[in-house]
């Protein structure tokens, strides 16, 4: 078995129009910038994929990454907890113009919905949001005298994530707090593609150090020196 992919372009080639796409990262930390940009490049060259539903904690920053996807017109809907950033113009303009949908989800509920999707749990109860406008219309139940909100799992057609080390079996490690949503999204997507700084042979990662077991990962592509969203934004880089 060898899950290695030759290029970021090949890695994103199966993502189709109308797909639901989980994108790992929290702001720029752990964000797979090269995979996102490869997807944008494909869209600019071919007009596809479009009408994407994108699941991420945020909704892009500046003119790169998810913000550049939104600017390019590839995104129909964002599912996120915090569609703000140091430069949220791309999402804000489209949202206020009614050109992009938003499903706003509390951050911990977003994480747990993704985990549930990956774990085969269709719904769960959480205290988060009870009594607020984000719980309107949802099933409420009482457990041990306290009210909880029923939330549904969240699954995706594809996940693109960023790891540190990957092996040919798809086992992954992460860099520091860059793991954030990435391990959860690996579980919750039908097809998961990881960019990693280095691909090693099977056995090249100590099993004690594996964070995401390869069963959750379909393809691994090496991006040796990945770009950081924060650095690109400070440099004023625009991808579209």
């Amino acid at each position: 078995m060898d899950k290695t992919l030759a290029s970021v372009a090949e890695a994103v080639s199966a993502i189709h129009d109308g797909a639901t796409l989980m994108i790992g990262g929290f702001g720029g930390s752990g964000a797979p910038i090269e995979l996102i940009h490869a997807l944008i490049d494909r869209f600019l060259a071919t007009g596809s994929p479009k009408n994407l539903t994108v699941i991420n904690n945020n909704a892009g920053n500046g003119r790169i990454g998810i913000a550049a996807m939104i600017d390019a017109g590839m995104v129909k809907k964002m599912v996120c907890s915090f569609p703000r950033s140091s430069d949220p113009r791309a999402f804000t303009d489209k949202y206020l113009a009614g050109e992009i949908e938003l499903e706003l989800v509390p951050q911990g509920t977003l994480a747990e919905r993704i985990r549930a999707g990956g774990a085969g749990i269709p719904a769960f109860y959480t205290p988060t949001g009870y009594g607020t406008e984000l719980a309107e219309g949802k099933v409420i139940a009482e457990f041990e005298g306290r009210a909880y909100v029923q939330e549904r799992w969240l699954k995706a057609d594809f996940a693109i994530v960023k790891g540190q080390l990957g092996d040919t079996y798809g086992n992954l490690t992460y860099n520091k707090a860059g793991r954030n949503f990435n391990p959860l999204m690996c579980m919750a997507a039908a097809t998961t593609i990881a960019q990693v700084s280095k691909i090693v042979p099977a056995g090249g990662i100590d099993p004690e150090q594996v964070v995401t077991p390869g069963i959750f990962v379909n393809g691994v592509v090496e991006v040796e020196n990945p770009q950081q969203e924060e650095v690109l934004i400070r440099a004023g880089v625009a991808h579209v």
Partner: protein
Amino acid sequence: MTDTTLNTREDIKLSNAQIAWRAAQDIEDGAYVNLGIGFPEMVARFQPPGRQAIFHTENGILNFGEAPPAGEEDWDLINAGKKAVTLKPGAAFFHHADSFAMVRGGHLDVAILGAYQVAENGDLANWRVGSKGVPAVGGAMDLVHGAKQVFVITEHVTKDGKPKLVEKCTFPLTGVGCITRVYTSHAVIDIRDRRFVVREKLAAMSLEELQAMTGAPLHTDGPVADLTVPAL
């Protein structure tokens, strides 16, 4: 008394640093603490000597520390406010579902948040003030559930002199019945049995003056101590 003549005692109020200092005095050594983005982050600067709290950030770190020097940032190592941080000995990384398990599962000792309004029954409004613009909630609705104590630090009144401690929140709620204590620019107030109970107030003001700038009845169940803080 009308709004225009309401005496909000701006002349004697605590600075934000002093409010943060006062809240920091109630964090025990070894406590697991989440500080909300912005003003609450200031609490970390005022830990009493000999005490070390372990700070949690939603994106997946326990025991992070100060910002690194400029130019030495690792942008995978950030806090929930997306600011670069460093690690202290004994730090740990974890994914987002584990991070919010720590929050909702009752594992944090203290969460400290800002507020637009706090109601006498412990309701909090702190995520949006109306229905305009782009809504963004982040982890606020999660953080108010699960920590053993959920504190608010805030000015006692708004910039235009309106009460922030109220009978019922008029802004969209973050959580119901979740706040246990409020540290303001003028007082320390517990929420007990759906009532505001004054524990400390500035010595230079009377309880009546404090009541006049509060939007719900204040109660006492014992002596009210002087709220004393250092010059900061």
